[in-house]
């Protein structure tokens, strides 16, 4: 090794003296080009730093720590329910996005004649190729997600996993389960059939019977005190715009917290 200090920053020279395949060379060239302009290394370093910090929180596995290789906590399969809610949510999101191509939220009447919304459902169910399958998958994944979320909450309750330091995640969970149910409710109104209509009726009455803020809530959520086009439109926007953003964001935070804290151990 020569005593003379090499130029550490002659990246081209460094690249040429190595025996690189074409692919590697192209990749490095592109990387260097981007790095020179965007300082990618800095961000990489940040990420790496984060990664190790997160992992520093990660303790030995439960079995290692307690020497429990011969023991099985028979509730462990239920610990998959949270992931299962997430997966069912994703399935519902994808099938829902596809359904959105064919659905139109227009209900000018409630006279017993098919409305535009109702007609688009009929089209999906009867004319569209695999349309009934799409709607069916959307329905079932939503039902299954709700069931999984309820059961997930029970498993968290009965394994005492909500205790310090996980209180915040429990509260986020309550918000999530409530929003899941509002998701389901707003979706229930979209077909604008008899069931939707009368479930909507109950919703308006419930909103109206809230003390003090009743009329205001009914106006905000249902667009009035009776069910009209405005009701359907609001439910639609809730269902395909507000709730998806909120729920997706909160699920990310919820799981991020689990990631950082680790799963509670039932010592």
């Amino acid at each position, binding site marked *: 090794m020569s005593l003379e200090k090499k130029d550490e920053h002659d990246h081209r020279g460094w690249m040429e003296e190595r025996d690189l395949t074409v692919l590697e060379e192209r990749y490095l060239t592109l990387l260097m080009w981007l790095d020179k302009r965007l300082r990618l290394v800095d961000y990489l370093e940040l990420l790496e730093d984060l990664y190790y910090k997160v992992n520093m929180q990660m303790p030995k596995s439960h079995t290692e*720590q307690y020497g429990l290789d011969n023991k099985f906590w028979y509730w*462990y399969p239920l610990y998959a329910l949270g992931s299962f809610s997430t997966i069912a949510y994703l399935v519902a999101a994808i099938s829902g996005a596809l359904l959105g191509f064919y659905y139109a939220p227009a209900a000018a009447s409630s006279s017993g*004649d098919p409305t535009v919304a109702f007609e688009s459902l009929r089209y999906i169910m009867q004319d569209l190729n695999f349309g009934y399958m799409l709607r*069916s998958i959307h329905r079932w994944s939503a039902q299954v997600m709700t069931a999984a979320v309820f059961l997930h909450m029970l498993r968290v309750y009965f394994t*005492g996993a909500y205790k310090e330091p996980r209180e915040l995640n429990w509260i986020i969970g309550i918000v999530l389960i409530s929003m899941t149910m509002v998701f389901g409710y707003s979706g229930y109104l979209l077909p604008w059939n008899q069931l939707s209509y009368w479930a909507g009726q109950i919703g308006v009455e419930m909103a109206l019977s809230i003390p003090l803020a009743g009329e205001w809530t009914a106006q905000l959520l249902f667009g009035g005190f009776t069910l009209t086009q405005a009701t359907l439109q609001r439910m639609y926007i809730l269902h395909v715009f507000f709730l998806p953003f909120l729920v997706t964001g909160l699920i990310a935070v919820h799981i991020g917290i689990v990631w950082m804290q680790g799963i509670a151990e039932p010592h």
Partner: protein
Amino acid sequence: MSDNDTPETETDGGTGIVPPDDETPTWSERKERTQGLSRLTYEYFERARREDQDLRQESSYVERDVLGFPAWPHEMIRNLALTSFFVGMIVFLSATLPPEMMPPANSSSTPAVILPDWYLYWSFGLLKLGPLNPDLALLGGKSLMADRTYGVLANLVVVGAITIVPFLNKGAARRPVEQPFWASVGVFGVIFAFTVAVLSVKNLVPMDSHLLFDLTFLLPFVGGFIAYAILKSMREGYMFTLNRRYYRLRPPK
């Protein structure tokens, strides 16, 4: 950390972004200059870091005290296996049991049964607790609120009660056998969710509605007591082995 003892190298890579020189404040200098809330934040972080450090050095364990076990890969591998099975189940159900087409909305014909989806039955049932709405003698036997208002408030009370559970039940106990009381509260809640759901469809249940109403509240208590009795009697044996293992690993201070 100090950068002073490393030789100066050219770090701008031709970008014109100048590396810090002697005039540039270091991070700790910047920190000293900040005021107010950000200053407080820095100070707290330093304290917290020092506390962590102290605790870690003081601990006789090789690893840091276990707070939980890692989500990846321990948890996720199992979850992926189980969830892929259940996604298959969703697709199977969808293919075999597609939703039906209902008649279009008609405000002039009320259906015999009005129901939300099943997961809202409990909430729907809570709306029908009218008989429990106290009437005040002071108001001449009139209720303080309309029955519906009462029902909506009951919903809020239930959700609120679930929310504050972590602040009521503290301590290290996790398994139901370790905390029979809280486990039986849970059993009470689950059974109540079912009975109140049945109450919400009381016109479909072939049973006297007063009896149904009484059972709605009786059954959860019965279930809760049974759970309590069972867990309490299991506790002795469990606690012995649990304690032995626990205290061997975390001797009391």
